[in-house]
């Protein structure tokens, strides 16, 4: 369930720091981490690109006042809310279709080694399959790199809740990774 609003000021934990305006020129600093988070939420690189794009567009709609050090947590929350908004509009979301066989795929020069990219795709697809609360905790802490406290603030839950959800998310992910490996090992060469 999405958080109701991605309003400007974050939770009470940061209340001692003065609020300041989110600098649009520094949003790019977080792009890589948000992209990985989006990929893990969506399970698809293409959807992740769109989600990050939409997230930035949403953030830039109006000035945002944040407390110091809360930029990334705030962006993650907007990303998450935008993800849910996009799911609601899924029927209208552009979806890549298969291309005719006679057309060659374009080389993606931005991609790293194919094997590494494949592994990342598999990993993020597995994360995307986790139940929402578990996936969000894992994305916030392990993918984005927020502290437990920051993650709790970003997702508006208690820190203990984040920790428990994270434990269970990792447990499920490890199991899925094991299944994936077993499946690959069993694939005839």
């Amino acid at each position: 369930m999405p958080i109701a609003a991605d309003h400007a000021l974050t939770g009470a934990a940061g209340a001692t720091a003065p609020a300041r305006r989110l600098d649009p020129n520094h949003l790019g600093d977080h792009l890589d981490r948000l992209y990985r988070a989006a990929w893990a939420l969506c399970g698809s690189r293409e959807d992740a690109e769109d989600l990050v794009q939409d997230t930035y567009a949403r953030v830039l709609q109006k000035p945002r006042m944040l407390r110091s050090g809360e930029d990334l947590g705030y962006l993650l929350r907007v990303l998450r809310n935008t993800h849910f908004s996009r799911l609601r509009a899924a029927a209208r979301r552009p979806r890549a279709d298969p291309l005719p066989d006679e057309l060659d795929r374009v080389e993606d020069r931005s991609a790293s080694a194919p094997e590494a990219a494949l592994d990342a795709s598999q990993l993020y697809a597995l994360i995307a399959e986790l139940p929402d609360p578990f996936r969000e905790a894992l994305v916030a802490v392990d993918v984005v790199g927020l502290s437990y406290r920051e993650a709790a603030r970003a997702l508006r839950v208690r820190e203990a809740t984040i920790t428990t959800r994270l434990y269970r998310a990792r447990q499920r992910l490890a199991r899925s990774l094991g299944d994936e490996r077993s499946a690959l090992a069993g694939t005839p060469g």
Partner: protein
Amino acid sequence: MRTPGRHPRATERDLARLADGTLDPARREAVERSVAGSGELQSRLRDQRRAVDAVRAHAGVGAPPALRLRRPVLAVPGRHRPRLLGVGVAGALGALVWALAAIGGGQAGLTVADAATLAARPAIAKVPEPPDDHATLPHLRAAGLPFPYWEDRFGWKATGVRNDDVDGRALTTVFYRNQGRRIAYTIVPGTRLPGAPGAETIRRSGIVVHASTDNRRLIVTWLRRGHTCVLSGTGVRLDTLLELAVWRSHGAVPY
């Protein structure tokens, strides 16, 4: 929540933090002792570490360059906003909100703006070169219509293609490039799209073309055999898009 078994002192939270190195040092020793004495806890900790390691192994995955270019800058207050078509963009914020509303829902049906957003996406396949003297690209049709080959005549080289499903319609977009500028030609099969808000209507070579702007992107739309064609680009002149849109090569490009 406590982990069941003979070592109740190591909780799930302890194991989570032990695995990623954030467990309080004062607590760490006791937890490690518990784990050392329990095969079950060792197995659980292995799972935690396995997941952490898997995610961390991909911490170097970065956003693709195309996404960096796509980050919207329109809403930054004070930026210069170009005026096009004498209509002008109704304010960067307004344009952005309008575009988001068009994409994100709220109104039913595909719009010109929806189709034009595909222009910002990457190509996912190459376009084959046509034989000499051909006016259309080979092997590429949408709603039975071929895409024009513009390189020899206008200098616009077809560089790639992508297919998307938007609102239940299969859209095909061909990207063209000329002197560093990129334009996108999308054929939208089926019922004609409603005109964009504020679009100007222009008649050129007997064809009715609608011109509008969206997020600094100049967009022209027209019909080919009842299907909507959307041609758009940034940094290109309206005359250029109009000339391309209505080029029929003496009937070799079917309209």
